[in-house]
């Protein structure tokens, strides 16, 4: 394994691009403002200068065209990594994702495929209002044929992006933008935390992968199981700590295909489960997890599975912290599930 360095999530993502562009000339990266400027969050900064205009470049503002162009390139032997500037803006490209990207291999019986990566920053916590805060992952988990991921730290972000680009399946990566510059445990009043002192902020500078489809048990425990991903992993850890509950916390990392084995093993052990996500509650990905867990672990369950989620409203600007499923709500759910 190569040297490690302290990296933010942005630096880790940037480094993943760098490694990929360096190793494989089929890799290219593009998106709105992703070229010269290096992306509005800097995830591709410096790479156009290093690899040239035709490997890292700006696109017109048309998310459908970005996805379509990536599909065409990928089908023709390249390994594009496309950035959608905010997950809230992925919807103009939804048709290309649902109707084309996800099905190309299937409908051609394997003759054509589009192994590409779509990355996009998601989630709230930066006062972005309803159009810079969405966590739309659940929509994509209902589309057969896509690998859906959400890393929660720099180490995973880099390793999963490399794994995604090297995978022969199309992979979507939702990057919680609130975590870009430091972990966030759900308390907006605390001073900002930094990745520099976080275990997962130590990132190998070279090539490595984090396997897709594998969850990470980030805290072992026996009292109950918390299934979370993205920002909510940090909220879960802190809430369990504050509530003094011996929770087992699972960082799902890959949503499709999700690591049912790890989840079921844990829930069968603890008999209780809480599922967390920032996205709206109804038909969120938590619903799928709960449905499957109750099928899988019914006889082990001692309490109903609870979910703590964003509300079924657009993400409001002023009431961001009343919307965000923060520590108070998570702690309450943990306690209630424990006592149920």
């Amino acid at each position: 394994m190569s040297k490690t360095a302290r990296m933010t999530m942005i630096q880790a993502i940037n480094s993943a691009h760098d490694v990929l562009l360096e190793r494989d000339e089929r890799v290219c990266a593009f998106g709105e403002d992703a070229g010269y400027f290096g992306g509005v969050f800097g995830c591709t900064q410096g790479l156009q200068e290093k690899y040239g205009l035709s490997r890292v470049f700006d696109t017109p503002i048309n998310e459908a065209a970005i996805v379509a162009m990536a599909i065409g390139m990928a089908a023709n032997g390249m390994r594009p990594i496309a950035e959608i500037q905010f997950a809230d803006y992925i919807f103009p490209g939804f048709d290309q994702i649902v109707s084309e990207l996800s099905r190309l291999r299937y409908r051609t019986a394997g003759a054509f495929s589009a192994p590409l990566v779509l990355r996009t920053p998601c989630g709230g916590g930066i006062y972005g209002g309803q159009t810079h805060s969405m966590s739309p992952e659940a929509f994509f988990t209902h589309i057969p044929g896509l690998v859906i991921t959400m890393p929660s730290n720099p180490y995973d972000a880099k390793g999963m992006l490399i794994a995604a680009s090297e995978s022969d399946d199309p992979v979507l990566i939702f990057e919680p933008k609130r975590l870009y510059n430091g972990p966030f445990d759900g308390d907006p009043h605390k001073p900002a935390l930094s990745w520099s002192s976080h275990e997962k902020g130590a990132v190998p500078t070279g090539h490595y992968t984090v396997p897709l489809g594998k969850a990470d048990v980030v805290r072992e425990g026996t009292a109950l199981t918390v299934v979370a991903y993205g920002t909510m992993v940090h909220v879960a850890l802190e809430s369990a700590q504050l509530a003094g509950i011996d929770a087992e916390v699972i960082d799902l990392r890959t949503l499709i295909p999700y690591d049912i084995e790890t989840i079921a093993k844990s829930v069968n052990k603890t008999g209780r489960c809480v599922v967390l996500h920032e996205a709206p509650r109804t038909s969120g990905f938590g619903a799928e997890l709960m449905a499957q867990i109750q099928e899988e672990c019914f006889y082990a369950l001692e309490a109903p599975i609870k979910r703590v989620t964003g509300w079924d409203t657009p993400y409001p600007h002023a009431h961001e912290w009343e919307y965000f499923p923060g520590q108070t709500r998570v702690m309450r759910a943990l306690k209630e599930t424990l006592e149920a």
Partner: protein
Amino acid sequence: MTPAPSRNRAGFTVPEPPARPGEKPDFSGLGLSQDIPVTRPDPDCPAKDTHMLANALIGVLNSEHQAQGQWDPALSPKTLRQGLHVMLKTRLYDDRMLKLQRQGKISFYMKALGEEAVACAAGMALRFEDMLFPSYRQQGLLFARDRDMVAMMTHCLSNAKDNLKGRQLPIHYTWKEGNFFSISGNLGTQFPQAVGWAMASAARGEDTVTASWVGDGTTAEGDFHGACTLASTYQAPVILNVVNNQWAISSFAGIAGGLNATFAAKGIGYGLATLRVDGNDFLAVYAVTRWAADRARAGHGPTLIEHVTYRADAHSTSDDPSRYRPKEEAKAWPLGDPVERLKSHLIALGEWDEARHEALTDALSKEVLASYKTAESYGTLRDGPLSPVPSMFEDVFVGQPWHLRRQRQDLGV
């Protein structure tokens, strides 16, 4: 003078076609004729030098069946006969497949009747290595590239030999070895994908060209605009074809904005090279395709081509055009029939005659029928055999994740 502000009593306009069932077909408003010679700029000209061609109609064959003007591709009689062969084959294949659908042997079909030249001539003008992103009405490309007819039919039959394992509706061909992309049921999605494909070819320094096709109705989709924008910005080696066959399903080209500008003119706003061609003139389609391919191949960028043609039969086997347009419209179409026109040209050249035509028709009909017999022997949708059931769970992903494995097991296969 500023018009006096007045109540806008007109409401909004909903365009209507010139004639509805029972009325007399009328194409006079389109100003189409086979006899206007049009200049041909060099393929390396600035795009704007082509913009007057967006409002012209490039033609080669005149009403006397002679090749005329600067766009004459000067094809050999052999090539011309080959063109006739390919178009006729397309037509006879279509006829047979329609019958099969009527007999319940296949679930669905779409013919290209009346617009065979668009795909056949383009298919012949392009190189085999050039990549094709067609819509569902360019089966002529397959015949131009000599795709095995039995393979086409096994696909339409969805049987065990279908190269798509029964997953796609008939006519949604894929032929990778023939550089023919997969056809999507969703309109227009392939247009911007084609630009991406072309960019990848260009990035590798290859000199292949990518071509794509959409219908007049489909130009309204956002993906049409996405494709034109990408093509313009990146100057990709791509040919974007609009097949204006006057009709979407039941809605005429005016519903897509076609009364207010030509479809070729849409290219002007992107600075694309723009050509508008008599789509029923095999020679003209050949010539413009070659022009655009030469341009793209030499690094001079994309071209948007409007092919003016007419969909002479139903939209699909689910459609009944007699409900929305006069039955005699196809006959009244001012640009004639592409097969008849090429045939007449060959005859005028002394390179063809009725007897040979009949013989060809006969031979092709037999080929189609024999192919069908073979294809059917591999199974039909109704009676099987089909691709094995477990194949249904394959190719969703490269591997088979646990949930699909379990679902397959759940089905007991």
